[in-house]
């Protein structure tokens, strides 16, 4: 038989071991080598605080009483975890980006950082959690009592309460030491998380060990176990469908709303990716925890004497079989379950109490507008420590008052039903932008009142708090308000009855309260951010202008965040703004960020109130919201304009590129022309010089004389022509030309041009359309003829077809008369089309050109002077030029 003192020694050694582990984890995290503390496995194990002493001991008792129904407590969370994509993913993202510190903070923050809501949720959670904490104390003391009994030392109730007091004290010390090391709730409590992870492993191993022993050690294997189950009392299990579905829903909902679960799931989440692993690893943990529950219950019912407490089978079976080691291990498992839950639940509740009740109370006691003084850090940490002690004290008092003895599972479910009253406000808040503060207040109030009336108060037993007459006949004899038969509907299981009415009326009040009220601007801002968290994790601005001085803000921030952290924060912001020193410009964005940092320590509502002290009256208004919307529209318009501008610039750039290309080509052409023209000038000069030298020597026949002087004359003519062309072009370009305007007809002009070129050696066959040529002209006919001659001569020179043909086609295009000159040659390549009208441009240098590449340039100048144009017409099968004739109106006459 294991002696009670040995058990006590083992328990104390275990606690000491947990202290060491927690210290080691804190140390390792301080050194920065604690990356593994943020791993998904530690996260998954920390979720195991869902499995409290209630599940460790109570599940077996539950199974012994109600068959498989105990499974619903695990199936609900399994569905929630596997469905993490729906709700948990969003909750975690919101929790991280808004620096949420607790479930009360989430609700308060969503509904406009409302202090009142924070207080409501906090109080509700404390009320609902107290019985649950008492339950854990009770389970630990009961397990002590079992060993004391086994050692032949029957415990009296004083012994029980005394041991409960010691357990509560020990837990308070542990939680205060490791739970209030840092103020910022978003910083993980590494020591505690580590201790919880170890405890998670211990309780799982303990339960599995007992299970394995029961199946293979007592029942004799898997097959016999199945037979044993089917022949036991549990097989008579009659499951009510309502309870099955209702409890699955309840446990799933409580998994999301229990303060301690919110703490480990959302607040202490180090990395969103951890959730993905936990989505299957945690259900696996739950599955393993519940796997041996039925076998243990069945075997316990079979081998233990009639009337043994099934809640303690996990301990009493190994003891009855003389396996003291296993019994102690199992005790440690139960102890772990109880303590880990109490530690986290206390931290979560203490954070809520200090952030939503103590600090706001203290702030308001300072009077409105007064600037805070003193170190708030110490105040908040002190408040948190006191709250931890207070919460545990409440649990202890409840334990004393209730006197223990109730079936464990019943208390757990009552507590669950209390905390899920937050669910409509929470789910509505993160999925529905229309949810308002008043809706949330109405829903939570209605739900809480119904829960308290129909479930919590009756749970103290007949004549506990509610007199039996009220339970039987309703208050003041109003039967419709009987706690367990609201609206006269009897015959429902009390738990399902309370759950159904509270959730239904809660949701209805929440919905209609939201629909019928109008949210404040801050609520709308927060609502948009929460609901659309995946679209913009960056917050909209809750402050518009700021009249605050950076220094005041720094002083305040130092009091909450600590001087180093606050200075680093301010310095970083100053650097970001490009300023030296510690004091940045107080921009709305900065104030927003600062508020969020503070919220991580003292909760959103308090942080908002504290920042508000410095920025009086500058909080966001409906007008500001509209202004923000306008701003967004302006930004969009501005970006549109930018896009337009950039398109315009692109066009200009393209034009510039074209122009540049043209310039480059021209420059090349010009260089080529300079060498060409010197050549052109030198060739006639050379022949003139050499022939005049021959003439000077004399002594030649008349025939020779006339031949040589003829050559000199021709060459001189060529020079003159070249110089004439250059002169002509220069005159045209400078606008010094005088035009001989006169009436005429296109036909005569073409006639003259054709006949002037007909006798040249490079003459070309011209095809004309005689009937269409009678177009009246009012222009300088000689100049126009010059243009036509040039075009016809060019076609003759450059057309490379075997039988060169030039078509001259007058036509009317877009109200103007044009004449197209189209030959049947190869045409002009695209790159050359750009330069043919430039001076000095010549596409080939064959001598038959006979000119210096000035012809087309002259033509263009002439046409510009005459008020028409000449362009190259691509795509006609050969080289084609279009001459747009000047209007045949005498401008002088019409004037």
């Amino acid at each position, binding site marked *: 038989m294991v002696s009670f003192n040995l058990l006590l020694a083992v328990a104390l050694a275990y606690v000491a071991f947990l202290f060491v582990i927690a210290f080691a984890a804190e140390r390792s995290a301080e050194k920065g080598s604690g990356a593994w503390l943020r791993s998904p496995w530690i996260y998954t194990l920390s979720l195991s605080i869902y499995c409290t002493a209630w599940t460790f001991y109570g599940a077996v008792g539950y199974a012994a009483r109600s*068959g*498989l129904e105990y*499974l619903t407590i695990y*199936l609900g969370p*399994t*569905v*929630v975890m*596997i*469905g*993490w*994509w*729906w709700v948990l*993913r969003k909750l975690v*993202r919101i929790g991280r980006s808004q620096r949420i510190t607790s479930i009360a903070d989430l609700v308060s923050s969503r509904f406009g950082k409302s202090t009142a809501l924070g207080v409501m949720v906090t109080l509700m959670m404390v009320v609902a959690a107290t019985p649950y904490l008492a339950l854990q104390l009770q389970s630990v003391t009961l397990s002590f009592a079992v060993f004391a009994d086994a050692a032949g030392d029957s415990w009296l109730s004083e012994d029980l309460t005394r041991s409960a007091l010691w357990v509560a004290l020990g837990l308070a010390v542990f939680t205060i030491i490791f739970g209030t090391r840092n103020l910022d709730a978003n910083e993980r409590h590494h020591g505690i998380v580590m201790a919880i992870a170890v405890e998670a492993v211990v309780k799982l191993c303990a339960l599995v060990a007992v299970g394995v022993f029961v199946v293979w050690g007592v029942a004799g294997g898997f097959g016999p176990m*199945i037979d044993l*189950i*089917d022949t036991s009392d*549990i*097989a008579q*299990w*009659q*499951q009510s*469908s309502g309870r*099955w*579905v209702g409890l*699955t829903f309840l446990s799933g909902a409580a998994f999301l709303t229990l303060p301690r679960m919110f703490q480990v799931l959302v607040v202490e989440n180090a990395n*969103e*990716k951890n*959730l*993905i*692993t936990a*989505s*299957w*690893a945690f*259900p*696996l943990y739950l*599955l393993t925890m519940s*796997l041996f529950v*039925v076998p243990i219950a069945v075997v316990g019912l079979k081998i233990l004497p009639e009337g043994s407490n099934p809640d303690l089978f996990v301990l009493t079976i190994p003891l009855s079989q003389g396996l003291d080691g296993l019994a102690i291990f199992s005790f440690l498992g139960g102890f772990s379950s109880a303590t880990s839950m109490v530690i986290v639940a206390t931290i979560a509740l203490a954070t809520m109490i200090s952030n939503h009740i103590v600090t706001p109370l203290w702030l308001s006691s300072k009077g409105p507008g007064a600037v805070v003084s003193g170190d708030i850090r110490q105040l908040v940490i002190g408040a948190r420590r006191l709250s931890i002690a207070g919460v545990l004290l409440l649990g202890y008092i409840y334990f004393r008052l209730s006197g223990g003895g109730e079936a464990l599972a019943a208390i757990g479910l009552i507590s669950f039903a209390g905390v899920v009253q937050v669910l409509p406000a929470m789910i509505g808040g993160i999925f529905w932008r229309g949810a308002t503060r008043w809706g949330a207040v109405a829903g939570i109030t209605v739900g809480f009142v119904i829960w308290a009336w129909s479930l919590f108060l009756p749970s103290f037993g007949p004549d506990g708090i509610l007199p039996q007459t009220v339970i039987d006949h309703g208050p003041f004899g109003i039967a419709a308000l009987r706690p367990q038969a609201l609206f006269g509907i009897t015959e429902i299981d009390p738990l399902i009855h309370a759950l159904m009415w509270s959730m239904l009326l809660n949701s209805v009040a929440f919905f209609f309260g939201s629909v019928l009220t109008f949210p404040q601007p801050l609520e709308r801002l927060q609502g948009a951010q929460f609901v659309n968290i*995946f*679209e913009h*994790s960056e917050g909209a601005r809750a402050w518009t202008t700021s009249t605050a001085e950076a220094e005041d803000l720094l002083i305040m921030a130092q009091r909450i965040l600590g001087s180093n952290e606050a200075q680093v924060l301010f310095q970083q912001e100053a650097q970001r703004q490009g300023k030296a020193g510690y004091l940045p410009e107080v921009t709305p964005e900065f104030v927003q960020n600062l508020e969020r940092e503070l919220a991580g320590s003292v909760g959103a509502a308090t942080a908002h109130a504290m920042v508000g002290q410095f920025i009086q009256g500058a909080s966001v208004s409906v007008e500001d919201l509209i202004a923000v919307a306008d701003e967004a529209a302006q930004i969009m318009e501005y970006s*549109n304009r930018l*896009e*337009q501008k950039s398109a315009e610039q692109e066009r200009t750039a393209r034009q510039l590129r074209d122009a540049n290309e043209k310039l480059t080509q021209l420059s090349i052409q010009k260089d080529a022309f300079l060498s060409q023209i010197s050549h052109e000038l030198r060739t006639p000069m050379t022949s003139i010089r050499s022939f005049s030298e021959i003439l000077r020597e004399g002594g030649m026949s008349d025939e020779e004389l006339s031949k040589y002087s003829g050559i000199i004359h021709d060459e001189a003519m060529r020079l003159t022509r070249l110089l004439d062309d250059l002169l002509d072009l220069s005159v045209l370009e400078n606008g010094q030309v005088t035009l001989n305007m006169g009436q005429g007809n296109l036909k005569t002009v073409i006639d003259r041009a054709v006949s002037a070129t007909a006798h040249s050696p490079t003459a070309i066959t011209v095809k004309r359309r005689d009937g269409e040529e009678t177009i009246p002209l009012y222009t300088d006919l000689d100049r126009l003829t010059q243009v036509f001659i040039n075009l016809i001569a060019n076609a003759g020179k450059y057309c490379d077809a075997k039988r060169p043909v030039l078509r001259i086609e007058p036509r009317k295009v877009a109200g103007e008369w044009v004449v197209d000159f189209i030959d049947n040659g190869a045409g002009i390549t695209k790159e050359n089309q750009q330069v043919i009208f430039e001076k000095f441009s010549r596409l080939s240098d064959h001598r038959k050109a006979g000119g210096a590449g000035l012809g087309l340039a002259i033509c263009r100048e002439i046409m510009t002077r005459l008020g028409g144009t000449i362009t190259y017409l691509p795509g006609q099968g050969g080289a084609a030029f279009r001459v747009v004739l000047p209007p045949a109106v005498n401008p002088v006459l019409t004037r």
Partner: protein
Amino acid sequence: MARPTKNTFLERAGYRRRRMRDVARVLPVLIGILFCIPLLWDRNGELGTADALIYLFTVWLCALGISAGIARFLTTDRSDDR
């Protein structure tokens, strides 16, 4: 004004990732229903408590197996949420 438009069609990997998200959405609903199936069993029929136990644990194990299988497809990066 050319705005970056959302692609209507995705490459193979992206498509697969989205379908895995659909699985993640449907799975909880499905197992929620499957967990309630034993309620329909005839209490005096052939299927006993042990069978119900085995059935529930099998569904449970399969569900978390699938959940583990699709976990690697479900990164929570912001780029293509929704």
